[in-house]
């Protein structure tokens, strides 16, 4: 296992880090799309997230990592087990962060007939794919804009329904596949299909750090990591542990947080002003603000929370105008300033 760069040691890139933390607090926000230049540490951040995530409870021996308390979303094997009245043992497992390589074949993504078993014993067994491994965790696709269309279709289908349906070579399987889709890509190397873009709850822009001091710090840390990964990780261990505790606390607080009617109205008004289609934007906006409030340990969700997450929740939902000069994040901020420029200060 190669060492992973610690999440806390990533210099800058605050919006990306915040977006990843918010979806880790509340996976129902949906996925994160990271747009950005080459070599800005997109992949590093996502892979580092794996080291930050707390453990989760899963059914022991379940190949799909089913939630012991998960009602309604069990894999066929767990369903069969509970039908037989077997007792369920629970184990702690790390939350999966699964890489979907661009070169992956369809059968590895959705799963396929277990060829070895079939050849050796004639048994028709299903071998789960990457979607099964990513269940209840994260599925990361680097350069998602270059992913082949038929794989994108598979991902869209699973992300929309929360389950994976396989009909191949005489195997017929349906299993839960709820995952947070994290994609990254450089729009200059190929646009993302609009349907796919819409599936991401949050979208962030990552830029090459402009300030020289930041670049120097990036390189200093990277160099230190390359030279002695163990020492570097030990050095950042406490910071990562602290961030992990904050994340866990936020998850606990999430349930109890109410969103005041006033904030709901503001969110609706903002979406109306920006002309985002559908309810998805509004819903994401609220969930993201709530996750942020939980992360900050706030009593209630305030307008300030809303304002902070609005760009990442809405920038990719604006009416597409590829020829618009201004970044879409700027358009969101402009709308906020128009709508409640002074209200934020009061709230």
């Amino acid at each position, binding site marked *: 296992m190669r060492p992973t760069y610690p999440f806390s040691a990533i210099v800058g890139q605050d919006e990306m880090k915040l977006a990843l933390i918010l979806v880790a607090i509340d996976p129902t926000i949906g996925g994160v799309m990271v747009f950005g230049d080459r070599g800005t540490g997109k992949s590093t951040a996502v892979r580092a997230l794996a080291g930050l995530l707390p453990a989760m409870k899963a059914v022991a021996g379940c190949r799909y990592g089913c939630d012991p308390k998960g009602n309604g979303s069990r894999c066929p094997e767990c369903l069969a087990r509970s039908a037989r009245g077997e007792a369920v043992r629970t184990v702690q497992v790390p939350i999966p962060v699964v890489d979907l390589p661009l070169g992956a074949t369809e059968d590895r993504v959705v799963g396929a007939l277990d060829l070895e078993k079939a050849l050796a014993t*004639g048994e028709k067994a299903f071998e789960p794919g990457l979607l099964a491994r990513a269940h209840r965790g994260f599925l990361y696709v680097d350069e998602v804009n270059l992913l082949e269309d038929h794989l994108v279709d598979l991902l869209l289908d699973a992300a929309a329904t929360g389950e994976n349906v396989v009909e191949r070579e005489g195997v017929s399987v349906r299993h839960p596949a709820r995952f947070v889709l994290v994609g990254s890509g450089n729009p200059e190397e190929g646009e993302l299909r609009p349907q796919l873009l819409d599936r991401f709850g949050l979208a962030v822009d990552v830029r090459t750090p402009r300030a020289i001091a930041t670049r120097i710090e990036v390189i200093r840390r990277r160099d230190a990591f390359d030279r002695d990964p163990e020492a570097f990780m030990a050095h950042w261990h406490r910071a990562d542990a602290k961030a992990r505790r904050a994340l866990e606390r936020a998850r606990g607080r999430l349930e109890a947080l109410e969103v005041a009617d006033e904030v709901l109205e503001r969110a609706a008004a903002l979406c109306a002003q920006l002309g985002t289609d559908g309810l998805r934007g509004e819903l994401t906006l609220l969930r993201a603000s709530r996750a942020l409030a939980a992360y900050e340990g706030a009593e209630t969700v305030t307008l300030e929370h809303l304002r902070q997450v609005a760009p990442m929740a809405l920038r990719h939902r604006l009416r597409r105008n590829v020829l618009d000069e201004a970044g879409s994040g700027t358009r969101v901020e402009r709308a906020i300033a128009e709508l409640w420029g002074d209200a934020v200060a009061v709230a």
Partner: protein
Amino acid sequence: MPSPSPDLPRAPEALIPLLLAVDPHGLGGAVLDHPLHEAARAFATRLQALLPSGAPVRRLPAGITADRLYGGVDLAASLAAGRMVAERGVLALADGGVLVVPMAERLPVAARTALSEALDHGAVQLAREGIVAEHAARVCLLLLDESVEDEVVAPALGDRLAFRLPLSGEAADEDAGVLSSWARMAREARHRLLRQTVDDQWITALCETADAFGIDGVRAPLLAVRCARAHAALHGRLLVAEADAEAAAALVLAPRATRLPIPPEEASPPEETPPPPPEASAEQEPPPEPPDDEATPEPPGLGELLREAVAAAIPPGVLAQLLAQLPVGNRGGRVGAEEASLLRGRPRGARHGLPRGGARLHLLETLRAAAPWQRARAAAARLSTARPPAERPRVAVRRADFRIRRFVERTGTTVLFMVDASGSSAIQRLGEAKGAIEVLLAESYARRDRVSLMAFRGQGTEMLLPPTRALARARKVLAALPGGGGTPLAHAIDAALEQALAIRRGGSAAMVVLLTDGRANIARDGTPGRAAAEADALAAGRRFAQQGIAALFVDTSPRGEPVARRVAEAMRARYLLLPAADAKALGGLVRAALQVGEGR
């Protein structure tokens, strides 16, 4: 500790293999700029000689598939063993050694992402055909850039390699004794590398130097730091010194420079410093605006030193070329073309069928189809044949199991815009034509078409944007399109035809949109003169018509030009007079025309 070795080479062709041998995976490798075959081979051999003994050197065949890069199922072994046997891919086989990539500019996207993955993580993840594994792949890449014209090694890959150098093929003659003493130095340096430290001042200086030369991102300075360390290790130093940083700046940063630093005392724009070569300036636009950075910060002393090293290492003319390329928005992006090479024969699953008539057998899927029946067939075989078990086939495959490979030939459309940027057009309606194109671009975006932009003026045509789906770039290119010069309409039609045929060969449908005022005044042979130019344009139009390519002729002259109409007829193109109305109204017309064109 050996003293600083006096016999280390200074020429980049000889020094770079040494540096790569010290930190092969950390430095990533090198792009070899249009090397002669022997020179590239000699470079790789020399590098191998300097690496630890047994380090593999592999050459990637052109058109390699992802299977072979990543690895997958070893079919023969799997069949013999009756269970899945994994096979290492080329990347895993080259672990700890060198991978030579010929024709790197034509590398398909899938292959290039595999290489990037290996560079970033030192390992490749396998998720294919029932195998999930991770194989170590600490490779050092030698990309042979053999591009012509607008081809470019994908920056996403080139950026990850420390070096880029032209190979003259002359410096290859060191005797075996020298080579073996270098090999010894490289070996000692490898041991020294981990204990080495880089003072912050050099990291700072390298970052500032990169910034001053307009090099974006942190990858370049990071590679420069690694290069400085390798250089120091070669010289037996445990602490990076000025000479090391200087060498790193010259070898890693200089080839990436996109501008000369702005001298602090005078605020002259950077593009005035290098005089562009005459042949570049004749055809190309005027120098671009400087990159969009904020003002370059005040350079401190150390940065200054390195800056001189970089400036000295930049070969004359290179910078001018870089500057001339800049208006395209970014350096290189041959994305459209990369996709084109994928179009043909992109495998997409398998289907029932017999492997004949050119169809290729999909062995794995065939086995998969046969697998569930093996027990039943074995039982049937026992009953029906008298053959002893040893002679019976291990796997029984029937005709119905055969699966053949299915390929996707994407029949997407590529819309080629050929824009008249001549003086006559520019003065009158270039702005409006641009507006019309923007509308069409938005339209193409909605339909997921690819677009390509060419302009013609003066003596010829110019490819502004190879086929791409990245419309943001198309818009940038368009905004920078200058006007002026004669109207070589015949040339434009010829070039459009040639491009359209190339697009068609790439497997996608082509459509040409020609925007011009029709006032042809440059003949095919380049001489001015209206009559000859018009006759040539008509002839070119007729030639165009023979290929049956859908075309749209947008007349941008104020009241319609009879010649334009005749040329459009010769081309069998739809003729549209750009109305004085706004571009949006035109959009509707054009949309209808394109749909008609598609229906052909």
